[in-house]
């Protein structure tokens, strides 16, 4: 029997909460068996109604992004068939309820129509209509050729806290879906997965949750986050775990309060963060400038979504790179990072807290709807390793009281002066948003102002010493380079790997920026100076990274691929666009 190493599965139906969790349960079943998975959801900015879909890609080896083509489509309503029929691979398995449709919309297609009476099966077990998902899950596992037991176990873990009855009920229904397919469609083998070996535990976790885990591991103690798509999952994560982890999550009245609370916590001596999307970030920009002036560490999760204004809240974009870099009145140092996947979110967030303390500045981590709300599979070991926490320059109680404490000591070579914490004896100072002297007293003396401004700007140079160059994939000597930042990397990597980094006969390399600002000028100049063709790929309309590259290196990207429909790039769209541009 032919089996595949990769299967892409999609389920669609009207909104409700079942669809998203069925994606998670399928993913967990697969990772528990050793597969790699990726789960995305697409839904309108509504609570109910509208078309919701979840896509899960399952593979026996690691990969970076979703594919467009489906091996299995599960339709919980008729609309799903209509909307997604063009995504079906020849031979694909199409599962639907004969109550909803006879499948005639796919009549002329080369697909395996597999009606499964979701509704009837659910009903025969006295289940609610919402439990059709569970039937579909059982059916899916059967089509994939996976053991029912793993799914039943996942269901157990999911529903255990609701009591053994609920749990058993769900298991029963899933099993019924599974059995139906086994008995009825034993010949439909199109979507059967190659068996694989499980090497280690993998988490199924969305990007915002990764952010939260990384933050608490890095010593976050206080977060003030006003709800906003696409960072709501970090609120749930922190609120749910506040008690057990001994941290505080506060829901502020607005984003302005959020950033100012976080700065208060930072001054008081604890690591703090905020999270928001573009609109809320706009409201925080004055506070960022304050952080710059007071030299207070703070980490900002800027979860980008489609703009401008309210835009399309539940769709993805990378429209705020330049806004983040230039945010806030006046001039002050900050760092902007842009992880591209779950592992990088973890490492960038840990790094962000470290850098914020090291340089006493705000650090912005750019995330987006796609990475925050998609579920990634990540080996547990990624999250559980040792993390060395260095709070940066903090004055010791013993060193205080001898002479007047200079919080903004100008004699430091790197622009970063040791700080005291309110309450420490002899550590008195003013955290002053007016221009100030070394103790924090207000000053308008030109010479002091100049020195204090220079001190802050000096941090740009200090940061240059730790700036990370872009990650380079492919042959570094290639004369064709692609450039991208943040989550776009997934689709680009899968595209390039699928052709072994050879496009139209030419070797291609990729520069992926997870560190965007201060710009890694030196390394990028080196990496791009002998390159003839530079194709910049961004999930926005104005190619903001390309602008940065030009601003700092003078080098112009020769081609710019943009996408601003709210839909993430796929490997196929990337590859086609790159070929077209060559």
């Amino acid at each position, binding site marked *: 029997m032919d089996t595949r190493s990769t299967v892409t599965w999609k389920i669609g139906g009207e909104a409700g909460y079942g669809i998203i969790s069925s994606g998670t349960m399928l993913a967990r079943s697969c990772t528990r068996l050793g597969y790699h998975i990726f789960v995305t959801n697409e839904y309108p900015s509504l609570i109910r109604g509208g078309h919701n879909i979840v896509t899960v890609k399952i593979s026996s080896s690691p990969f970076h992004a979703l594919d467009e083509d489906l091996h299995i489509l599960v339709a919980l309503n008729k609309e799903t068939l209509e909307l997604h029929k063009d995504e079906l691979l020849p031979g694909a398995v199409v599962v639907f309820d004969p109550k909803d449709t006879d499948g005639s919309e796919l009549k002329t297609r080369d697909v395996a129509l597999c009606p499964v009476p979701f509704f009837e099966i659910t009903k025969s077990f006295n289940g609610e209509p919402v439990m059709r998902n569970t039937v579909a899950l059982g059916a899916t596992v059967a089509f994939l050729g996976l053991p029912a037991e793993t799914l039943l176990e996942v269901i157990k873990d999911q529903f255990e806290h609701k009591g053994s009855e609920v749990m058993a009920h769900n298991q029963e229904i899933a099993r019924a879906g599974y059995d139906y397919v086994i008995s009825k469609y034993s010949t439909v083998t199109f979507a059967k997965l190659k068996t694989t070996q499980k090497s280690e535990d993998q988490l199924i976790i969305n990007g915002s949750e990764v952010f939260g885990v990384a933050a*608490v*591991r890095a010593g976050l103690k206080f977060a003030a986050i006003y709800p906003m798509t696409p960072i709501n999952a970090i609120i749930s994560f922190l609120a749910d775990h506040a008690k057990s982890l001994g941290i505080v999550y*506060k829901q502020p009245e607005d984003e302005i309060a959020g950033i*100012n609370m976080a700065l208060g*916590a930072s001054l008081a001596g604890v690591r703090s963060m905020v999270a928001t999307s573009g609109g809320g970030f706009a409201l925080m920009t004055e506070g960022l400038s304050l952080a710059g002036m007071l030299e207070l560490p703070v980490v900002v999760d800027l979860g980008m979504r489609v703009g401008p204004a309210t835009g399309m809240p539940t769709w993805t974009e990378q429209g705020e790179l330049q806004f983040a870099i230039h945010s806030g009145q006046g001039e002050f140092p900050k760092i902007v990072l842009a992880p591209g996947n779950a592992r990088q979110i973890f490492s960038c967030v840990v790094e962000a807290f470290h850098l914020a303390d090291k340089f006493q500045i705000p650090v912005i981590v750019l995330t987006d709807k796609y990475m925050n709300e998609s579920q990634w599979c990540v080996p547990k070991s990624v999250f559980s390793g040792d993390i060395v926490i260095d709070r940066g320059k903090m004055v010791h109680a013993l060193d205080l009281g001898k002479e007047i404490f200079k919080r903004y000591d100008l004699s430091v070579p790197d622009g970063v002066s040791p700080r005291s914490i309110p309450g420490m004896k002899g*550590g008195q100072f003013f*955290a002053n948003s007016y221009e100030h002297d070394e103790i924090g007293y*207000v000053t308008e003396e030109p010479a002091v102002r100049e020195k204090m401004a220079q001190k802050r700007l000096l941090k740009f140079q200090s940061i240059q010493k730790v700036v990370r160059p872009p990650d380079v994939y492919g042959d570094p000597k290639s004369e064709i380079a692609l450039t991208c930042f943040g989550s776009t990397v997934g689709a680009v990597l899968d595209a390039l790997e699928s052709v072994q980094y050879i496009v139209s006969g030419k070797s291609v390399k990729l520069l992926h920026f997870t560190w965007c600002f201060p710009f890694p000028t030196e390394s990028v100049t080196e990496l791009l100076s002998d390159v003839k063709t530079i194709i910049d790929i961004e999930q926005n309309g104005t190619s903001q990274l390309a602008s940065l590259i030009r601003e700092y290196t003078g080098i112009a990207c020769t081609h710019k691929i943009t996408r601003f429909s709210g839909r993430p790039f796929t490997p196929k769209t990337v590859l086609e666009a790159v070929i077209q541009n060559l």
Partner: protein
Amino acid sequence: MDETKKIVSTEEFKTHILPTWCPGCGDFGIWTSLKSALSGLSIGSDDALLIYGIGCHGNMYSWMKTYGFTGLHGRTLPVAQGVKVSNHELPVIAIAGDGDCLGEGGNHLIHAAKRNPDITLILHDNQVYGLTTGQASPTAKVGFKTKSTPEGVTDEPINPLTLALTAGATFIARGFAGDIPGLTKLMQEAILHKGFSIVDVLQPCVSFDKIHTYQWYRQRLYSLEKEGYVPDNKIEAFKRALEWEEKIPFGVFYKEDRMTSEERESALASGPLIKSPVGVKDVEALLCEFI
């Protein structure tokens, strides 16, 4: 405030900068009262954090040596809450203006009151935006001519007392910048109160308000305490707070014991956040939730 026996002289707060307020400004009285309130409570220059708004009132930090935070116009209270939740052993006092904390920052006042953090707010209520040279503030009374209202104010003034009351503040008082002993006492009560306390201080601005002078206030002010008023009822407090023009009450309008936001935060049960270990080490259980 663990060293309540310590002797703190008001001299301890002295800096090298002399006040730049206009001679006669009500801010002087507030400042003097605050210094004696703190010294009376043995709170010295290293023992508390004062958080200032941007305005004439906020300039006080320059001649008030304590840990100080002078942030953005209007944002004292969020900062104060962030500090307090991180270190609830530290006394935290916000020094705000009426423009600052009823105009730009009005939303924060309501929400701070609602949460009841153990913070004291001293509100410099001078009916004007002093530092920007005299526009009407949210408390400016009808008819008052200012730079931004050359024809006189026409809006209803905001009443900080009823606002705080309806928002859930647990200690609500009014003082007068011309009455230093009385104001000192109110401030001390407010600071000692466990929960969100607000002292609205009637503060003559001698440069931009020629109507509400010390004289004007003195002719109208009366003490709630002396009247035997008991500050334990919201409706009575509301009634009194509506009085103005002929008779203006001062003193404590309302007082209530309610759990503070810090007391309700389970992470703080075993001590301040700044003292808990940094970085969650044991993540096994947490990670297993995702498998």
